[in-house]
Each structure stands twice: as C-alpha cells, then as structure tokens.
C-alpha cells in the first residue's frame, strides 16, 4: 500500500468516524439520563436524511405528518397523566407544544415542498420535524416506562425502532435517495482532496462537541442533565424533573441523529433501513466508552471509522464483521477489568 491510499482511507475513516462520534455521544447521553439504549437513533438518521433529500427534490415527506400524529398522541398522554389535576395552563401548554407546533411545521412543509426550497430551509425543516418526533416518542413510549428496568426500556426501544423503520418504508419507499451537498466546491492539499461536504462534517462535528461541552459545563440545564445522570433521586430532591431531563436528552439525540443524516446523505445513498447499521456503529463506539465516557466514545468512534475504511479497502465483504468484531476484545477486557455491575434498583 502506498501513502496516498493510506491517507485517503484515513480521511474517509475520520469523516465517517466524526459522524459515529456524534451518534455515540447521543447514545451515551440518552442512556446516562434515561437508561434507554436508544436503538431508534439510526431512524433519526434516516428520517433526517430522507426528509432533507425529499424536500430538496420537491417532494412532501411523510415525517411531517408523523410528527403531528405523534404530537396528538403525546397530548392524549399528557391529558391522561394529569386527569386528576387538570388546569387550563397545563392543557394550553400541552396543546401548543404537542399540536400547534407540529401543525405549523406541517403547514410550512407543505408550502415549501411544492417549490423546491433552498438548502437552508430543507435543513431547518428536517431538523425541526425529527426533533419533534424524538420528543413525542419519549413522551409516548418511554416516559410512562421511566420507572421500569433497563431491560423493559430496551424492549420498548426495539419496538420503536421496528415501528419507525416500517413507517420509513411507507414514507420514503424502498429506493435510496441522495441529497444535495450542504457546501459545494472542493480543494486539494497534497494528494488529498477535501470536498465542501467533508469540511462541513468536520466543522459541524467539532462545533457540536464544543457546544455540548459548554452546555454541560456551564448552563444550569446542562448541569441538571448531568445531575440526573449521576443521581436520579438527588436530582428530584432539588426539584429537577426526570421527565424534563429525559425530554432534553431525547431532543438532543434526535437533532444529532437528523444532523448526521443530513451530513451523510450527500455522500452516500441512504435507504429507509440504512440508519440501523449507522446507528449501530455509533453504538459500538458508545460501548467501547462503557456507555458513560464521552471522550472515550469520541475517540472510539474515530477508531471505528478508520477500521471500517481500511477493512472496506482490504476485505470489503467483511467490513461490517470486522467493525463489530472490535466489540469482542473490548467487552472481554471490560468484563475482566470491572466487577459485575448490578442493575440499578429504582
């Protein structure tokens, strides 16, 4: 192998690894705060990507309608949960966030889809739609189960994944789609060619990681989220609602997923079921980070990306196998190094 090929593969690996890093960070965040292993993360990726691609192609994405439908469901859950102490302000707030907001977004989507909107509008709409889907899914599928075991939450998570994947087939069809590049143009440095898209990927990933770091380190809500992850009872005793932390975590995870999708879809053709495998690679990184460590997850994600790039060059038939095989030595080491962890009781 010569250095040029190696540099190419490294570059490719880092671009993919950056996206896996974002997804891995979101998985760690959601797990730490809600104990949910977020399998539908991959669907947030495909929904984001395909909503963006559909809008850019002037088609109406079904996800906007799904957001409204889920919003109505979330509203019903809110009403049911508060049935003993209903008051006007609560109902009004629930209507605004769960029904009015997705209805407005749906109207905007219908309006813009008809006239091939500019890239920025497509991105904004896709992000908002997927963010709402993430938020409402938490309300419907996970918040009512918040007190149950990790295993129950995992099963719910698998269910949500399957449902979303099926709906993805319904909304986007079996054919793959590609979206327009966020940033066109390119330049070369030595043997390497940097496209606008790969620069976008690096830039957004770094910006997001810095943003998350600032959010968790400096803001009261960021600290509240960490507090919930560290000690759920302690957080409740200072008045932090577990549901609020869960909502913020799901909101961040769905936005990160959708953003990753929007960054990938100009590079690779995505299908309604492509997200699962992409999410799984973020998951491999998160597992290597022990589902707790953010920096370890980010580094592991880059390793996953690079290993994937090299294995697709040398043994492309086995590239997924090789990536997932990374898990075995890591799990082995972890099980030897750490004492058995009992599942949390609450």
């Amino acid at each position, binding site marked *: 192998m010569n250095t040029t090929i190696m540099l190419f593969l490294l570059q490719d690996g880092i671009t993919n690894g950056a996206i896996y890093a974002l997804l891995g960070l979101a998985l760690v965040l959601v797990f730490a705060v809600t104990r949910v292993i977020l399998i539908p993360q991959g669907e947030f990726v495909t929904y984001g990507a395909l909503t963006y691609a559909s809008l850019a192609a002037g088609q109406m994405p079904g996800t906007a309608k799904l957001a409204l439908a889920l919003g109505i469901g979330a509203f019903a859950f809110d009403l049911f949960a508060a049935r*003993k*102490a209903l008051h006007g302000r609560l109902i009004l707030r629930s209507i605004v966030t769960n029904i009015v907001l997705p209805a407005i977004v749906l109207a905007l989507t219908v309006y813009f889809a008809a006239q091939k909107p500019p890239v920025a509008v497509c991105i904004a709409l896709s992000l908002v739609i997927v963010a709402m889907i993430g938020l409402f899914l938490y309300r419907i599928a996970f918040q009512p189960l918040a007190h149950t075991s990790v295993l129950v939450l995992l099963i719910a998570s698998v269910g949500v994944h399957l449902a979303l994947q099926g709906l993805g087939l319904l909304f986007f069809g079996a054919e793959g789609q590609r979206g327009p590049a966020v940033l066109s143009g390119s330049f070369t440095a030595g043997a390497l060619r940097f496209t606008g898209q790969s620069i976008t990927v690096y830039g957004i990933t770094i910006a997001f990681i810095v943003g998350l770091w600032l959010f968790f380190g400096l803001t*009261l809500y960021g*600290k*509240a989220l*960490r*507090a919930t992850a*560290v*000690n759920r*009872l*302690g*957080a*409740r*005793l*200072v*008045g*932090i*609602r577990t549901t609020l932390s869960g909502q913020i975590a799901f909101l961040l995870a769905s936005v990160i997923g959708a953003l990753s999708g929007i960054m990938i879809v100009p590079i690779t053709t995505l299908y309604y079921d492509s997200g699962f495998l992409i999410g799984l690679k973020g998951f491999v990184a998160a597992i290597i980070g022990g589902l707790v460590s953010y920096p370890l997850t980010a580094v592991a994600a880059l390793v996953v990306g690079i290993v994937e790039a090299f294995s697709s060059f040398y043994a492309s038939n086995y590239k997924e196998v090789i990536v997932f095989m990374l898990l075995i030595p890591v799990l082995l080491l972890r099980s030897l190094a750490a004492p058995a962890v009992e599942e949390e009781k609450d």
Partner: protein
Amino acid sequence: MSALLSVTDAHVAYGKVEAVRSVSLEVGQNQIVTIVGANGAGKTTLLSAIIGILPLKGRVSFAGQDLSRLDIEDRVAMGLGLVPEHRELFVTMNVEDNLELGAFRIERSKAKASMERVYTLFPRLKERRKQLAGTLSGGEQQMLAMGRALMGEPKLLMLDEPSLGLAPIIVADIFRIVTELRAAGVSVLLVEQNAQAALKIADQAYVMELGEFVLSGKASDIAANERVAASYLGFQHEGASVL
C-alpha cells in the same frame, strides 16, 4: 394555630408490610422537632413518604396545602427540603455545581446570595468549592448535602440521621448549625438515633417504635421520661454510645 407541616393518620407500606402505622405529627414555625427511635423503627420511611418518594396513606399538608397530589419536585419547590440518609450528592460534580443545582427551582438572581449564606454557614465548603463531591470526607459530604438543600430556600428542612458515621466534633458542629437554622427561620424535622443530642436541641419530640409513635411531647419532658431514658439514653453515663 397553624402548623407548617401536619401529618394525620399516616400509613406507609412496602408492598404488604406496613412500616409506618397511624402516625400523626406536627411541625410548627421556627421549631425543631425530632423523631427518635431505634434502627428499623420506620423513621426514614416516614420522611421518604412525607417528601413523596414513597406513597403515603393519610393526610399530609404543608403550609396549609394538601400534598397528596403533588410529586417530589413540586413539594421541593413549595419549600419542603429533605437531606436523605445517603445524601444523594452529585458525586462526579464539584461542590459549587452541587450547590448551584440545589437552587434549581429558585430565581437565579437569588441563588448567588443563597450560596454566600451557605458558605458562611459551612466555611469548609467554600475552601473546597472546586473539589468533586465524591472526594469529600463524610462530614463535608453531610455539610454539602445540607447546603444543597438550603440552596432551595426550604421553609422546613427534614434531616435524616445527619450524625451517622461522623466524628463527634463534626456532629457537634452540625447540631449547632441546626439550631442556627431555627434562629434564621427554618423549621427542622430531625430524625436521629443519637437521641440525647437530638433531644437537647429540639422543641418537640416523638418516640417511634416498630412503625408507631409511642410517646410525644416537649423534648425536655421526653428526655426526662424514664422509659426513654432506659431505652435510648440508658448507657450514656457509662460513656458508651447511644443506641
């Protein structure tokens, strides 16, 4: 006469086992009320139910409002604070962040002043404000847990075994601070195994045995009661620790 906290005919059960039976209690404004009793009497269970961690059958009202439909977070926002036995600190965060989060439901402009007050009460915490909560000593963790609860500007602070496992000098410090809190207008509901120390600073006292209150009255009367002296204060003059 209106009590700040009033509990009427409370029952608390773990599944089918009733850990607290038909308990009634009142805490007035500017009062220290203590519940003393042996390990397993149901004291911690009762506090957990008052804050809303465990379901309680019976009536609980705080500052004139019925608490039965409110969850923990609402009760905290109303000014009911609990420092639990296991402290439940945010161990991977530093002292200052722990305190800041204590004021999560308080206006941010007020939080700064509250933090200064907590630092005056516990100067040790100020020295360690950038240190992770998990690396503090037991006494410092207890101070931080109390400080965090005080950041929420509670009208009533419930303390569960604040002296457990701490050196006598630190225990004395913590009891002194409890009396200072009363002077500052915070009522305290104190659950203690260290009955002698608790009865010394309390205004009212309840004695709990096997999930029920067997005695109640002025703390000084309870301390003088023969039965209490025999069961809870008995070994004191021989220098051994209190039950």
